């Protein structure tokens, strides 16, 4: 009888954890609400719904990017025709063509650069709300050292990355485009080199930061995971040494708390990942579409033989690629960290 009663109480305590309601992931930000799936209990289904919603929103951007692309192709064709003349007309045509294409593409590039910067800030802000929840849930599950180490690493790298992007890398993209436009107009080798340096610096910064972050996560995962596992084992040994009945009750309660903490950590983690993806996916796809269409446009323009203009269009597509790398890095940083929280005590 007493056993049945104990089991009933244990099941009840598992179903409604004492303070589970306190540890839930923060609500998805406004920008991600439209694509966020309603049901977030299954990660696979949620992800599919998220993709479906994000792809559904892409049509107007596709149209706009195609319209710009057609304008650029028409301008390149005009310049190619004028280039058949010799002397100053050729130079003037190339100069005018560069100015027209750079101005046309800069308008859409500018809005996408701002979109990327806003998305990065939004993901970072959401991360600041999600991290304490995941840390508390993991600590409740016994991973006190691991969760604190993960929080410290993620918060530090996130602060450095988002600050680096907004203060240095986004201005560098503008600089890259300015140098690309100037290079296209003048054909100066120095400008070309500087443009390459700007591009290299952006990719190098992102690669280094992500590599250092993943190394930190891997090392702290092993070191603090071992500490937490040892602490959990020590607790179990202590519990089993208490009076038999009390030992049993303590062991059941400990198990119940670990399981319920794990449940709420998983729920918060899955919601958090989907929320981060909801904020990230639409802008990423918008920039991605622009990137692909510009690549295609550059390939098409190469047929007309306007080398410098083709290179300029290629540079704009590279700038979109850099934006994809920046938003992707910020999102990846938070996803890696959340997955590590979900993995729990090693």
């Amino acid at each position, binding site marked *: 009888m007493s056993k049945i*009663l104990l089991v009933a109480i244990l099941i009840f*305590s598992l179903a409604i954890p004492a303070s589970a309601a306190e540890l839930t992931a923060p609500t998805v930000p406004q920008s991600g609400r439209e694509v966020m799936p309603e049901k977030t209990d299954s990660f696979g289904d949620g992800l599919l719904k998220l993709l479906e919603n994000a792809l559904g929103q892409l049509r107007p951007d596709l149209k706009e990017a195609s319209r710009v692309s057609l304008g650029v192709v028409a301008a390149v064709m005009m310049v190619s025709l004028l280039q058949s003349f010799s002397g100053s007309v050729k130079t003037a045509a190339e100069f005018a063509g560069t100015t027209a294409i750079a101005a046309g593409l800069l308008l859409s590039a500018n809005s996408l650069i701002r979109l990327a910067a806003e998305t990065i800030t939004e993901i970072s802000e959401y991360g600041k709300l999600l991290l*304490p929840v995941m840390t508390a849930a*993991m600590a409740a599950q016994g991973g006190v050292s691991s969760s604190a180490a993960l929080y410290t690493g993620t918060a530090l790298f996130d602060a450095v990355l988002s600050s680096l992007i907004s203060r240095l890398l986004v201005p560098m993209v503008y600089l890259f485009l300015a140098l690309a436009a*100037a290079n296209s107009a003048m054909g*100066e080798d120095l400008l070309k080199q500087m443009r390459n340096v700007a591009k290299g610096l952006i990719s190098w910064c992102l690669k280094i930061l992500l590599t250092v972050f993943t190394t930190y996560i891997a090392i702290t995962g092993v070191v603090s995971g071992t500490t937490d596992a040892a602490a959990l084992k020590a607790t179990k040994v202590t519990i089993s040494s*208490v009076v038999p009945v009390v030992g049993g009750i*303590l062991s059941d*309660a400990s198990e119940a*708390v670990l399981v319920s903490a794990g449940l709420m950590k998983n729920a918060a983690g899955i919601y958090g990942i989907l929320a981060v993806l909801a904020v990230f996916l639409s802008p990423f796809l918008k920039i991605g579409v622009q990137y692909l269409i510009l690549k295609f446009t550059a390939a098409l323009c190469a047929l007309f033989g306007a080398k410098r203009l083709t290179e300029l269009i290629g540079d704009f597509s590279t700038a979109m690629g850099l934006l994809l790398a920046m938003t992707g890095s910020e999102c990846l940083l938070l996803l890696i960290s959340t997955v590590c929280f979900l993995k729990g005590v090693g």
Partner: protein
Amino acid sequence: MEALRQYILSVVTAAMLCGIVTGLFPSGAGKQVVRLICGLFLAYTVLAPISRGELPDLTDFSLGIPEEAAQAAAVGENLARDSMAEIIKSETEAYILDKARSLQAEVTVEVSVNEENVPDSVTVSGAVSPYVRRQLQRIIESDLGIAKENQKWTG
């Protein structure tokens, strides 16, 4: 943003100026010298504002993060401890009630737990015979480790 606009405008203007100046000179040694000067001028235009920019200190970012991490972990620890205390309290009370019922006694029980979440005192209320009381006292002491002096009996 205004400073950035100014910077990009100055780079583009400098590049165009250099292009025009270089274009004005006929090919030869003179042009080479002009190209070199233009190159230096361009490099200065691009690099000077960057070198004036201040790189933020790493401590600006890390300030307060370890404390925040410790606070968040403490929230989780407290949550787990409180939840565990609740479960242990209710399971221990249920155990005592079950034993009392098997002795045909109607009582209410309130258990307190210490910092390690081990039951350390109990208050039993209800009218029970001396025999049942002795039996329950013994069970509580031997099964749950709550000494007789920490058992309070009322009613």
